[in-house]
């Protein structure tokens, strides 16, 4: 049986109460991407300032539950200042952390354990996989970031240089 403390770690509540990197960036030049969780109505806007392959700044606005708010706040802290390649690597590892394999739904097996030792604060979110309905809350900001990067490369390729 999943325990509530696995979900609401103190560090998560901390990020929820005092979210990092809240705000907007002028766009353009920043990339502005909207994320949306139709199931619970969570909305999120991610602003990305990318220069020379580096995510120089990131800001977030929107509303959502503690998990979605904390996840986006922790994400912003984890990726800010990193090279795009490194950002993508972090996204990849986070997605792995959040994966509940279809097989586990079918067979009742446990979700696979991701490599959490390299993830710092983000590891606090691993408790979310024990609450599968909340995974969408945790991944909303990451999917939005991912989408922003994809769009960003389009933008960069065509002339923000």
């Amino acid at each position: 049986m999943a325990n509530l403390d696995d979900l609401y770690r103190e560090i998560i509540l901390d990020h929820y109460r005092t979210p990092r990197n809240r705000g907007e960036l002028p766009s353009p030049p920043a990339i502005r991407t909207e994320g949306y969780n139709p199931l619970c109505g969570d909305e999120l806007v991610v602003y990305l300032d990318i220069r020379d392959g580096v995510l120089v700044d990131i800001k977030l606005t929107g509303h959502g539950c503690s998990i979605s708010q904390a996840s986006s706040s922790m994400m912003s802290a984890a990726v800010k200042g990193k090279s795009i390649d490194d950002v993508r690597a972090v996204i990849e590892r986070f997605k792995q952390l959040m994966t509940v394999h279809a097989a586990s739904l079918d067979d009742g097996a446990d979700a696979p354990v991701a490599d959490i030792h390299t993830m710092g604060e983000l590891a606090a979110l691993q408790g979310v996989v024990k609450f599968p309905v909340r995974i969408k809350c945790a991944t909303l900001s990451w999917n939005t970031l991912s989408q922003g990067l994809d769009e960003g490369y389009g933008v960069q390729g065509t002339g923000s240089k």
Partner: protein
Amino acid sequence: MSSYNARRVRSDTPLLQREINGRPITYLDSASSSLPPRPVIEAMSRYYELRHANVHRGVYQTAVEATEVYEGARVATGRFIHAPKGDAEVVFTKNTTESFNLLAKSWGAANLRAGDVVLVTEMEHHANIVPWFQLRDQLGIEVRFVPVTDDFRLDLSDFDHLLDGVKLFSFTAASNVLGTRNPVKELTRAAHARGALVALDAAQSVGHQPMDVVDLDVDFVCFSAHKMLGPTGLGVFWTRAEILESMPPFLGGGGMIADVRLDGYVPANGPTRFEAGTPPIAETAGLTAAIRYLEGLGLENVERHERALTTDALARLWERFEGRVRVIGPATSDDRGGVLSLDVEGVHPHDVAQVLDQFGVCVRPGHHCAKPLMRRFHLAATARASFGPYSLSEDTDVLLEALESAVTMFA
């Protein structure tokens, strides 16, 4: 709470014997789906164990019995809602949503043309909105909304004007978000006076109060078995026989035809015209059992019981939280059902529901398939608690205790 024995209902309901996180379950999500009592579950098992066969056209013993189960449920349903022509007016669908699609895509497509107005309300469930948008996109009808006042009632100040050009007024008997009960007879009279037909979304009222289609004088009624102690997979569409006979087919296939040739088909008459393919048969055994069970309880008693619980809960929520927990819906239990949409200060409804789960309390966070209404009140979501015939004031005790914990945790 008078002679009504909710504790007895509770002990009849297997799921309520379950423990969650070491505590007895506190089920407060009947507005989403109700919990079937043992007789309903057993009626379906027994059906599969003893009688299952495809209905109609069979002459062997179990096929005859299965047909009796199925047609018997139609009779029971007709009687339950006081359909003037009984079973001849009862169509079985998959759920309320399919019933509304049947209404829009059969009656609507045949009777509405560009410019005609379908009037709904801002407090409708998506089931009574999206099919009309689909028809609008197809035919060019207008979908108009009756607004909702700040005190969670239909705003009828401009109603007469809103009725201009309306061919159908389709509205909910009771809001699944606000709990608000609408004045069905009054609204129906007004709509009829302007030549409009009236469709009633009874998903939140059947099973919670008596339903009499003649007394209400409505023209169409839609509801779901799973919200009235019955099974999933079964809905009801009712309309008067004259209208039913005039409606063109909806889904095509076996059972709904009189003849099929290489060059076309002739639809069947009566309710079966709208029941293409093998219907949910076992589910109708469950529905009949649910109807009998509810009739045994007495719908007036269920209504009185749920109203008492609601009055009590409204008072105690206010007492304990003094506004830190807001009820999005009428503040008194007049003209409202046992649906309490909660907005907890500083705590997202998802988190409310998650914390409550730790106490074994089942409430539903979200937009409750009523996004226009949520927007109206600038909410993304609420945490909704709702009562059923098996609810007890102990449920409210646990709800309050768990809410306290949520408020503290996120403070």
